[in-house]
């Protein structure tokens, strides 16, 4: 069962929980994964998002999210103007992703410090979202928990090293999944935790020497 505040709630900017609130959360999550203010974003829209985005304000919600606005922030209505004022260079284009979830958006982003990342996700109903890809990794991330994302080589012992770091910092793992392209190649580990992930935890993960990169994405 879901919670009381999924039924009476969430507080949100209308008109649609999937096409507006979910879209805002998706943008917010994509921005958090980029980890720095967005300078440029090309947003590819699939399915219902591509067909109906204007009528639901989906474009405003996606950009509002990228600007860091929560789904209940009334500035969403003016997000496109605010983005232009802040120099966020955005564009929208349709994309056919086959049988992907009908409310899917893919963010091709560049940050103000030059970081580039592509994040894809779906608004899966009731304002809930799932990030389904980061760059070429097919993943699953809901944004309901603080998350640790680790990029590493697929080999024995990496998971233990990282979980040791978390244990040392008294961080409890709620959910954990590992994704890889092929055996022995680059892999991605996503760990959702009950506690916040501080910068020193991320540094300790990097100091293990067994990973390529680690970054934290806060719950949204």
């Amino acid at each position, binding site marked *: 069962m879901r919670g009381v505040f999924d039924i009476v709630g969430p507080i949100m900017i209308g*008109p649609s929980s999937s096409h507006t609130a979910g879209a805002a959360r998706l943008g917010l999550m994509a921005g958090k994964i980029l980890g720095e203010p967005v300078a440029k974003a090309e947003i590819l829209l699939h399915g219902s998002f591509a067909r109906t985005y204007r009528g639901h304000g989906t474009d405003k919600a996606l950009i509002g999210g990228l600007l860091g606005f929560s789904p209940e922030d009334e500035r969403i209505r003016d997000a496109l103007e605010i983005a232009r004022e802040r120099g966020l260079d955005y564009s929208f284009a349709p994309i056919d992703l086959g049988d992907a979830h009908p409310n899917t958006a893919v963010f091709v982003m560049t940050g103000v410090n030059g970081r580039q990342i592509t994040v894809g996700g779906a608004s899966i109903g*009731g304002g809930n979202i799932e990030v389904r890809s980061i760059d070429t990794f097919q993943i699953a991330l809901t944004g309901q928990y603080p998350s640790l994302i680790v990029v590493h080589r697929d080999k024995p012992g990496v998971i233990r090293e990282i979980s040791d770091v978390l244990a040392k910092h008294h961080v409890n793992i709620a959910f954990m999944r590992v994704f890889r392209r092929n055996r022995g190649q680059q892999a991605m580990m996503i760990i959702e935790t009950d506690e916040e992930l501080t910068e020193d935890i991320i540094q300790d993960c990097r100091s293990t020497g067994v990973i390529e990169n680690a970054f934290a994405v806060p719950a949204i």
Partner: protein
Amino acid sequence: MVNFNSIKELIELAKERNTSIGKITMEYEQEHSFDSEEHMLKSMQNNWRVMQESIERGINNKDKSLSGLTGGDAIKIYNHRDESYTGKTVMTAAASAVGVSEVNAVMGRIVACPTAGSCGIVPAAIRTAAEKNHNSEEEILDALFTAAGIGLVIEANASIAGAYGGCQAECGTAAGMAAAAMVQLGGGTPDQVGHAVALAIKNLLGLACDPVAGLVEVPCVKRNGFVAVHSMVAADMALAGVESVIPVDEVIDAMDRIGRSLPRTVKETAEGGLALTATGKAISKRVFG
């Protein structure tokens, strides 16, 4: 550990402990989310504050939606309340529900309850009941938790999404939640809450979700007004002692089965019903090209 899988179990727990369905729901939420009672009450208080703000904004709203299809009707209904056939209370409730739904359509702030498309029904019903009964805020929060408990069971045993169950899943669930809250605010028993939910949902079974151009506007905005009033009648009947012949959980089962058997054209696809009328198609063409 508090657990319930049906409205019957929820009612039995409330009766056993001589408390409200809202209190049982709160206890359930506390055990499942590890949230404190104080924080939960604060969150619900915040929801109620936003609900009231959306009613105020709604019954004064003159803005049009992005599509231009809706906006400005709540104020008309509200201004007509003294000359209306149905009377001031009913018209105020209808205006409030339409108003909240208009606020949703103009990208204003609302509380999804259970969804954005049905967001006007519960706030309008609770406000109407609370004004008549002079309920305290504590009682209003309890009624909101009562409504949430009903919604949780429906979500688990049927659906609250138009895309899965048609509009009966959204406005039907909201009607059940609103009727439950009103019975609670009127001092009804847990059994009467159950009958109100059954009566409210039974009379919305099979309702199509066929929004014009796929937007949460036509028929959604005005339907919120109709369904708010519908839920008031269900609450009044239950408080008067009327019982539903079909028990509430069986009504929810029926809703689930009907939802599954409804064609997909009337499940939020904008491919059937009102969306496919000549006018509906013309509007869709105008909005999306």
